[in-house]
């Protein structure tokens, strides 16, 4: 175990997605010391895997680029990737956090040249493509990855493939002896920006995600539309690579459902409305989108976007929770259900069905410290106890199912809450 690397004047931000990066940067730009711990090899989180944002249809990587530039220029933030929190002890203003740093098997000497990837032939499921594609077992997570350093997948460490990667690196950056480390740090406040994960679509059995190749999730659809994605941005369906022009979007896939997630995941309506425009972008008037919904929750000014999509002749809306999907002989998903506005039964065949998958807090699977207070869906409300005990905060989608804009607001607010703790600690120490 290495020695402490921070003080109680520092803030720990857990999670390097857009919320975590925002919380870290906003605090750092106020002059505070921040440790940003991310469990994967790169910052960027889930938004880096989106093609466009609603409602502006701009690209998430654009904001990521700005945040990375803020980060590169700010020495107050110490970034630790492949790092997870093992334990938190202590109290507000004085926490001791044990971090586990997993080996990347590539040192800071990496220049990002890619020779190791070229040398290796073993492949793994690409975690940044939701398993839709493979990547070499020595890989750069994605084009916007930060740090811009390759990763050696543990599966090839100790194999000839690993040795190939090592031999290929002219800069001696591949270190196959790298070991997991445990680090203990002292911080005054902790921001949990651990984000969300897509609900396990296979659990929504009537939709057959685990049985039908052409039933995919909304996050996977983002990858299909993204020029950086596995199809180079072409909307091709998984079963046969056929152009998917007639696409069903199924809302509340896992959300608003006592059998799955009790809460409404907020973003999915807008995500599907946005994705209908990917279909339009790809196929023009030849594309066809059908949105199956219970309520379209295009809240506040998002209503504009909804109205715009409603006017799009390629998009139609069916007020219905789809009852089930079956597959026909051509692997087309056939949706069965009833349009409840007046009761119209349908059995409609599409090229592809996209499940607007619900948001589950990532921390649902992570053990948070015992004194965190979670709501019934596992979102972080704060610490247990009184106002005086609040030294750890949720931010972004870890605290509530939020869209990006609201996540960033939430993260900015969390940064101030952490700063307040630091301020009070400092004052106490002065006294």
């Amino acid at each position, binding site marked *: 175990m290495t020695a402490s690397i921070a003080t109680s004047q520092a803030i720990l931000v857990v999670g390097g997605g857009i919320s975590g990066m925002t919380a870290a940067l906003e605090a750092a730009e106020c002059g505070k010391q921040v440790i940003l711990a991310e469990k994967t090899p790169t910052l960027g989180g889930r938004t880096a895997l989106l093609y466009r944002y609603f409602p502006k249809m*701009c690209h998430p990587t654009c904001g990521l680029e700005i945040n990375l530039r803020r980060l590169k220029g700010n020495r107050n933030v110490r970034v630790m990737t492949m790092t997870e929190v093992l334990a938190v002890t202590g109290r507000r203003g004085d926490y001791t956090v044990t971090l586990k740093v997993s080996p990347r098997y590539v040192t800071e000497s990496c220049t990002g*040249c890619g020779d190791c990837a070229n040398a290796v032939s073993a492949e793994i499921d690409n975690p940044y493509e939701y398993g839709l594609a493979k990547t070499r077992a020595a890989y750069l997570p994605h084009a916007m990855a930060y740090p811009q350093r390759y990763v050696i997948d543990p599966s090839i460490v100790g194999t000839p493939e690993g040795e190939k990667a090592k031999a290929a690196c002219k800069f001696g950056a591949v270190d196959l002896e790298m070991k997991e480390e445990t680090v203990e740090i002292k911080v005054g406040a902790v921001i949990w920006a651990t984000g969300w994960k897509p609900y396990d679509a296979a659990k929504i059995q009537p939709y057959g995600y685990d049985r039908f190749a052409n039933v995919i999730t909304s996050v996977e659809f983002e990858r299909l539309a993204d*020029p950086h994605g596995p199809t180079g941005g072409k909307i091709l369906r998984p079963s046969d690579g056929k152009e998917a022009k007639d696409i069903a979007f199924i809302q509340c896939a896992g959300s608003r459902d006592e059998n799955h997630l009790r809460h409404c995941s907020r973003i999915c309506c807008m995500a599907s409305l946005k994705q209908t425009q990917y279909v339009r972008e790809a196929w023009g008037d030849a594309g066809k989108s059908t949105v199956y919904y219970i309520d379209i929750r295009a809240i506040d000014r998002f209503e504009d976007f909804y109205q715009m999509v409603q006017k799009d002749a390629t998009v139609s809306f069916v007020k219905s929770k789809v009852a089930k999907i079956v597959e026909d002989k051509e692997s087309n998903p056939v949706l069965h259900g009833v349009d409840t506005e007046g009761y119209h039964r349908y059995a409609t065949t599409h090229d592809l069905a996209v499940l607007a998958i619900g948001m589950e807090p990532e921390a649902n699977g992570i053990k948070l410290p015992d004194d965190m207070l979670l709501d019934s869906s596992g979102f972080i409300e704060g610490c247990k106890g009184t106002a005086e005990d609040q030294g750890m905060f949720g931010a972004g989608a870890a605290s509530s199912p939020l869209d990006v804009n609201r996540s960033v607001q939430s993260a900015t*607010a969390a940064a101030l809450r952490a700063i307040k703790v630091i301020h*009070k600690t400092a*004052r106490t120490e002065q006294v």
Partner: protein
Amino acid sequence: MADNKFAAYICSGCGLGDQLDIKTLEKIALKEGKMQVVKSHPFLCNAEGVQMINDDVEKEGVTHVCIAACSRRSKTEAFHFPTVAMSRANLREGVIWVVAAGEAHDEVRQEMADDYVRMGCAELKKMKLPAGNPDKAHSKRILVVGGGMSGLTAAFEAAEAGYETLVVEKQAQLGGWAANLWKRVPFKAPYTEPQDTGLADLAAKVGSHPLIKVHLNSTVAETAGAPGRFAVKIAQESGAVTEETVGAIVQATGFTGYDIAKLPELGGGQANVVDQAGLESMARAANGATIKRADGKDVKSVVFLQCAGQRDDSGKHLPYCSGHCCATSIKQAMYFKNANPDIDTVVVYQDLRVPGMGEDFYRSAQEKGVTFTKGKASGVESSGNGCKVSFRDLILDEETSINADLVVLATGQVPSAGVELDAWTEVTNAADGGSAEAKQQKIVMHKSSVLNLTYRQGPDLPQFKYGFADSHFICFPYETRRTGIYAAGPVRRPMDLLQATEDATGAALKAIQAVENASLGRAAHPRSGDLSYPLVRLEGCTQCKRCTVECPFGAIDEDEKRFPVFNEQRCRRCGTCMGACPVRVISFENYSVDTVGSQIKAVDMPDEFSERPRILILACENDAYPALDMAGLSRTVYSAFVRVIPVRCLGSVNTIWITDALNSGFDGVMMMGCKKGDDYQCHFVKGSELAHYRMSKIGDTLTQLGLEPERVVTQEVAITDNQRVVTLINDYVAQINELGMSPMKGFN
């Protein structure tokens, strides 16, 4: 200049040494680049390479460093030399990763690298390490305009973080809209019952906080200055004026309810039809007992009509959704059910919008027996001793009606954001043109201002759609266009109390950040931490006003003689003023007409018979340049005839660079910027738009030079366009080849 020492470091790692002749590059840096120190290294970014550079800086007195290696976006931790000026020549992502492999391309590849070294050195020669503005602004006090839930939250949060705060509230008491509420929607689990608003507690804490000063019955009569040194006049109703200096401002001026009188078709104006605010008053009066109507009758049946005057596409009412109203009606229906479960409560909705945990609140209301029906109301008439609500039940697919004692219309939020600046500019221009009517209009308009900024570009925050003072950006909700002034709460976007308190907390942080930045002379987002600032040679200024008009952040005022007055603390360092200036008197220490101009001129120009055109690309550093980098990362080949210069924003592109490029023999110029229009993606608001506009004006110049207009193009490039950008380049090179070499070649 005597103390300056210029050095170039050339890396031969990552295959640079294999594909390029490093010796030639060294020679160019030394001879043409006039670098005093030139060194190459097989692995420049490793500890040893970095040490070599640091040693030169510390021991040899090197003040300027050109790194000829990878892209300026790579290895930033290694190449971090805060005490010297630095340029980066992009030989990896910009040359060897994008030029076709093989000997056949050796020559063009080397030419490209040679040019980038020349350009890196030329840029460096013109650069200075920004020293920061000595004119720092030190006030760290925060002004909060508006004493409602958002304003009080912002004030309290800022004060708790140790910042002195002023609250200006126009009413005689704190509380704003929330003071009218009987209860609020729950913020935390179990999301089943209406909760106390917590306002009284918060107002008391604010009132007694040692760092908070509250001005009641007061408005902001004038705001001058800039972050760290705003001079604010606070006018009391009585007429007394207090002057205060503050460092940053949070505008939490809230909203008003949409006027129910505008909805006669839904019974607006009838005795037994109220809006949600009206119902709150009735609920407060009842205080938990059965709610009574104005005529004293107990309400035994109530109908809530959602989206009243909202989500309207006819142009008559509000087009947007106010977000909170579904949950608010649910809460209000609970007021009735909790008092007496036998009261019939029906909510007529089109889409029930209770995102997140609001779903639990909805369920709770259903459990209490609130009836929800998807329908569209067509009219409310008085009937008997109540109202008859006619609507189409969309589930049962029929026209139907309900009789009720009371109808509640869920109307929307109308932001109180002050003066709309486009209208203001129009009126101002007309007034300046002598229109008496316009002058009068301007006075009336001014009275509705919230902040009364003395800014050249108008008295309030620029408004986004529908009068909300929101940020335009998804990733950056606090990216204000008036540095140091942040909107919070429903004035920025329709929202509920929970969101408003989150938003106010975030805005308080941004205000704190703004005062900290101002005190250090640093730029705020997106060029956070930038110490450069615009320098102006006023003696050359022609008072053309372009800079003051085009500055996206209203940073530049005018003095009495109509000279521009730069307010550095408001400036975001985009360089739009520099691009605008026809006489080129505006510059930054590390980014100027010269730093770019000299790069353009440094490019070695093959003669017209060489069949090697040269295309200049001016690429926005946030989107187009990363896209080009990523093309390199994926080893996508594009023409080796292009030379790329990153710019802060297309708005900073001065037309002189275009004419310089064409004069020096470039065969074409491509400008790559962000998307423009309503959904613009430029973080400096209108860089692309300005570039388009400016280029449309240089058509004549081109014609005079005998050049085809196609030789200058502007393109919208997104950061994801790493494939498309290659196509754009290659197509353009083909087009230029078609046109033939520039006739300007050889004149220099």
